[in-house]
């Protein structure tokens, strides 16, 4: 395409929205680093963690779980029917983590000292130390997992072959690292028994976070494949004839099982705490909404979708699952945290703008890559050889 025609093709309604977001968001971001985070946020002495942690980091990591979930299904469990969504899931995972790190940079008071935890003064007793290493290594693993697509795009055949040979090792490493840090994100809150509401506090928090991250991964892959299928029609392989409905119903089957298991372990947490009395309070109603409306209900809807072969219902349940995991992460890190403190945290406009900006940047990079590299379709020369 000629440069002029290309430039003209950029003037679309979607791009206008993205441009508007960045026009407001990037100066806000600059202002945060110039004047300090107090200038744009409602963070306080009693509420030191706001949506930059709750959404950009704690939710972000869970929502990027599709990469390890699908990689494990395809490579380790032999569920090869999910292959068409493997690359988009890995790309979403990679960019998800990349922008989790961007979000972390915004939330850290002195982000330039981030390497200290790896080299200068590592706090080996900290849960965050483990999470830091896992996220750092897993980001590299995801890059390696995605590398074949980039190598095919660049036509680097030899390196691409080598990558195939070591792929299983990388996948195993990725699943191990994900198990560790997905669960450890829940372990952040183990030292806050008095601050986190008893219906959410549990010594099993790491297990809750791990199991629900798998559900989040499945939900996100269903959601993302539906959106990509619509937005990137021109990128789809005309020869592949991927039956997206059947694929999403296959994911729904996994979703039903994982969500039900998650509902069950959460119930075990409630039994272990023995705080049934709290179920009859306002917080109990909020807990019931999360557990019944956003865990049990999508689990049953997934099962019903599989039974009636309704891909539409599976997609709805996928969206509910994603919302449910977001709700849970918000509850643990924000809403039910400091539940008995009078001054409630409500995010400032500046915080919301910066979070939206980071998500927008992620979507833009995703689009740039998908429009160029073999992600939603197979590279003609590498058909069937992954």
């Amino acid at each position: 395409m000629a440069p002029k025609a290309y430039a003209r093709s950029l003037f679309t309604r979607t791009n206008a929205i993205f441009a508007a977001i960045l026009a407001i968001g990037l100066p806000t971001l600059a202002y945060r680093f110039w004047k300090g985070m107090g200038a744009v946020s409602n963070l306080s002495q009693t509420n030191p963690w706001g949506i930059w942690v709750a959404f950009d980091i704690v939710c972000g990591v869970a929502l990027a779980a599709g990469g390890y979930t699908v990689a494990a299904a395809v490579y380790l469990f032999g569920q090869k029917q999910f292959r068409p969504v493997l690359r988009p899931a890995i790309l979403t995972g990679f960019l998800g983590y990349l922008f989790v790190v961007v979000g972390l940079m915004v939330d850290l008071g002195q982000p330039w000292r981030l390497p200290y935890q790896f080299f200068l003064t590592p706090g080996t007793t900290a849960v965050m130390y483990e999470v830091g290493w896992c996220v750092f290594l897993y980001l590299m693993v995801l890059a390696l997992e995605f590398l074949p697509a980039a190598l095919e795009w660049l036509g680097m055949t030899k390196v691409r072959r080598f990558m195939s040979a070591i792929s299983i090792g990388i996948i195993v490493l990725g699943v191990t690292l994900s198990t560790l840090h997905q669960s450890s994100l829940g372990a952040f809150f183990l030292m806050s028994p008095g601050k986190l509401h008893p219906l959410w506090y549990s010594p099993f928090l790491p297990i809750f976070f791990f199991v629900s991250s798998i559900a989040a991964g499945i939900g996100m892959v269903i959601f993302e494949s539906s959106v990509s299928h619509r937005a990137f029609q021109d990128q789809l392989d005309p020869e592949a004839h991927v039956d997206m409905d059947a694929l999403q119903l296959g994911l729904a089957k996994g979703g039903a099982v994982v969500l039900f298991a998650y509902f069950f372990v959460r119930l075990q947490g409630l039994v272990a705490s023995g705080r049934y009395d709290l179920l009859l309070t306002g917080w109990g109603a909020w807990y019931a909404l999360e557990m019944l409306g956003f865990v049990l209900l999508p689990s049953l809807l997934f099962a019903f979708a599989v039974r009636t072969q309704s891909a539409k219902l599976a997609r709805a349940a996928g969206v509910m699952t994603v919302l449910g995991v977001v709700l849970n992460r918000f509850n643990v890190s924000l809403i039910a945290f400091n539940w008995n403190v009078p001054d409630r945290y409500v995010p400032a406009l500046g915080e919301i703008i910066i979070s939206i900006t980071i998500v927008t940047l992620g979507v833009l990079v995703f689009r740039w890559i998908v429009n160029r590299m073999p992600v939603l379709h197979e590279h003609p020369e590498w058909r069937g050889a992954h």
Partner: protein
Amino acid sequence: MNLNRRNLLKIAGAAGAGAALTGGALASATTRGAAKNAAGVLVDTTRCVGCRACEAACSEANGLAAPEKAGDDTVFAARRRTGPTSFTVVNKSAEKSPAGEERYAKTQCMHCVTPACASGCVVKALEKTALGPVVYHEDRCLGCRYCMIACPFGVPKYEYTKAAPLVRKCTFCAARQEKGLPPACTDACPSGALTFGKRADLLEEAKTRIYQNPTKYVHEIYGEDEAGGTSWLYISDVPSASLTLPQDIVKKSYPEMADGALSAVPFIVTLWPPLLMGLYTFSKRRDDVAGHENSPKGAGHE
């Protein structure tokens, strides 16, 4: 139940092939517990007159601005909290003593025996020293504010308005202690409400005072078991709840609450890869037998 699970995981972790990885957890056990003769302060609120000399001395010793409304008792009308520029504040008790006297209590960092902030800090910016204080290395801090999430007493405060912000809190005058001097606040206290000494001795002293005046004191030493024990100990003739001392503190070491999760790390690192490789081999074998394997040899894994 939690204790059993933790111990089980500890044993499993130590016995596992990943024993080398538990190095961090073992090191923590030695750095977490302070020495037996670590410093402490006994706060006897029955002797405190609410003069706020401790606040003024603290501000001076730490180079902070003078306390708000110095010498003005109207300051007691509202509950005050420590902040980035005030490391200790005196509050009036909600309850008067049985004899009808006002009661006051100062708040500051409790300098836990096993501090949650120090064990959770990813860059060791907070550290429990052998002398007793929990000190802050401002040249290491990333500003993640996890210490504020972890501290059950809500002590670490943050400089939100600075471009390169730091965590601020009571230092227990660690620099003065190293020179053999008592903390500034205890030095300035005119009424004998603050006694500086070894924590173990102060615990005995607190018990003796309660034992000798059983009808006067509430039979409670705040800080003896709170969060696994703190360097600062409080006794009073009014309940600790009315002294604005936090009541939702679990009476065990906070870092231990994360031990189960941390001990599982070597477990997962050593068990997951062989387990996952086994799964892979299993599913590949199933494919081979079913005759679905149609990718040419050497072209990589299907």
